């Protein structure tokens, strides 16, 4: 594929707002996970005994009056993330270069603003939403896309991608197609997901939540830690003389196996990774860092490790950073792409946090310790419910 320039990139998660906070936490081995302290609605049933990656300060974020119709925890996190790392300035510059209608918004989420819908259901009046919750554009999946469009002044095609935990990786692929087809000259991609009852009690009902902080790829791993995060990247056609980070390839596939369990041989994961490498026009041996999906569930990690071992040489440094952020679901794609871009830009390859005992089922690519190395290409894997897979390849101009 024709490379796309990444003019700006940011991620806000439990380790703090913006890319520097993320890089610093990765370097220091400081986790953003804390004992579950989320939500009033859980109080009656007792909070789940687990650890979460919660973003501080969302409760006190104040949106401008014009954006109040879209007020929700999820859209507040979108607002917070848009304010980091020069993202607003980069968006304004893209609008100035191309015109607002030639910039697209393509953002991913799994639950969008459903936390607000849940809250509305706890305070019904005569079986109806109370006035303060009766804001129709919040209670639908496109709440996120519409909010980002309103918050940025972008007026080109605006889409919310909702393929569960691959959502904000797939946005890069869709944006690449849209720019290649000439329907837009730039695209703001990204994703936001926030903690809510649906995901905490939902993943708990599937018995996939660990009671301790998650331990990706550890032999004794026993489940995931849920987190919330938001992030964005601004993509444009690369031009001659560009320097900086680029999207070089994407690969998408389906497991065709099960709604909530990965394909036992990781076939879908392999297809997505292979396709991403092919689009980038590189060999697997040229990849220096791979950010794994690595949820820390027993099934995911050994299957993903086997898929990685089937494609990559032993020298690959691959890790899951969910020990820092938790599994941020629909935001995992953008957060972990940002981690891959940090590795590419600074040569700081993260290891894993909370993981100590290697699983003999996992190959030598799976690294617990961080490493410094100059690399040419970095990858990110994001896999979701429904067997929905996406891999991305990043490089430098």
């Amino acid at each position, binding site marked *: 594929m024709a490379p796309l320039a990444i003019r700006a990139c940011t991620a806000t998660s439990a380790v703090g707002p913006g890319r520097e906070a993320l890089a610093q936490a990765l370097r220091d081995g400081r986790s953003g996970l804390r004992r579950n302290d989320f939500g009033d609605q859980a109080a009656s049933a007792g909070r789940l005994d687990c650890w979460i990656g919660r973003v501080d300060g969302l409760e006190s974020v104040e949106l401008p009056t014009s954006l109040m119709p879209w007020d929700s925890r999820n859209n507040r996190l979108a607002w917070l993330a848009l304010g980091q790392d020069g993202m607003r300035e980069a968006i304004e510059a893209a609008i100035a270069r191309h015109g607002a209608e030639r910039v697209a918004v393509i953002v991913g989420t799994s639950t969008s603003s459903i936390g607000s819908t849940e809250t509305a259901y706890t305070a019904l009046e005569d079986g109806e939403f109370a006035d303060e919750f009766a804001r129709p554009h919040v209670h639908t999946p496109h709440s996120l896309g519409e909010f980002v469009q309103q918050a940025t002044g972008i007026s080109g095609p605006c889409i919310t991608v909702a393929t569960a935990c691959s959502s904000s990786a797939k946005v890069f692929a*869709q944006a690449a197609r849209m720019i290649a087809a000439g329907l837009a000259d730039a695209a703001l991609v990204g994703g936001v997901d926030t903690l809510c009852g649906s995901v905490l009690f939902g993943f708990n009902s599937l018995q996939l939540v660990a009671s301790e902080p998650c331990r990706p790829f550890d032999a004794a791993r026993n489940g995931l830690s849920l987190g919330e995060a938001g992030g964005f990247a601004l993509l444009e056609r690369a031009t001659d003389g560009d320097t900086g980070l680029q999207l070089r390839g994407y690969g998408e596939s389906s497991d065709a196996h099960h709604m909530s369990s990965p394909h036992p041989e990781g076939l879908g994961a392999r297809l997505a990774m292979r396709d991403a490498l092919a689009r980038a026009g590189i060999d697997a041996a040229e990849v220096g860092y791979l950010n794994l999906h690595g949820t820390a569930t027993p099934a995911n990690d050994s299957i993903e490790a086997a898929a990685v071992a089937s494609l990559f040489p032993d020298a690959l440094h691959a890790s899951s950073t969910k020990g820092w952020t938790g599994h941020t679901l629909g935001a995992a794609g953008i957060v972990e792409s940002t981690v891959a871009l940090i590795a590419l830009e600074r040569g700081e390859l993260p290891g894993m946090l909370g993981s100590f005992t290697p699983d003999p089922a996992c190959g030598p690519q799976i690294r617990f310790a961080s490493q410094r190395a100059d690399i040419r290409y970095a990858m990110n894997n994001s896999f979701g419910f429904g*067997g929905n897979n996406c891999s991305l390849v990043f490089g430098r101009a």
Partner: protein
Amino acid sequence: MSISQAPGLTAHVAGIGFWTRGLPSWAAAREYALNGTQPTDAPARPSPQLLPANERRRAPETVAIALEVAMAACESAAREPASLPSVFASTHGELAITDYMCATLAADPRTLSPTKFHNSVHNAAAGYWTIGTGAMQPANAISAYTASFAQGLIEALMQLRDDADAVLLVAYDGQAFGPLARMAPSEGLLGGALVLSREGAGPRLHARLVPASTQPPANAPLSRFASANAMAPMLPLFDVLARGEGTAILPAGAAHDLLVEVTP
């Protein structure tokens, strides 16, 4: 580049699937659009053969209708479903499950059903489709409010332009439930599917973004028939497809409509 110079996207419409209460197939919908006649024995619910009998009745309605119209489109295009990448567009997803999740969380969160939870993802229909057909091709699932269908069509056409030989587009919305119904209104059950191909038989479709304009309410037969469903914005195209040629203007977002021309 200004909007008017924006390039168009093209495809052949190789196969069509359609289902709504009262018009349970594309043949029935076409007959109604052209002659105003309706079948007398239309079933109340789609019965997608892709699902095992015991799952067919339990499946969420939006999953059932998505699989029904997707399979019908593949059959009419004579395409192997597993060979096609797919794009699923829905405004609200399965509102009955959203209502269930929110009501259960408010009452007794620890009793949440794991099956309902994994069926609550917006890509549930895409998941069941790829599992049922064995399709390892990419599947996308999007929402864009009233622009959901137009943006789904654009994404399918872009995949075709990129490297796919044929693509499946599936669009659907279901019945709103509970207190959420006034926030996310949608009546009945409506689904449409298109198999779009680069080459081969079928009417030619050409789509391009044009500046948004104020359109009078769509007045053709199918557009009137299911006007209260959240996926109704797709119906002007199906009215045109029933006639075999013509132009449909579909809402595509804040600044754009999608102008879709169909020629035999």
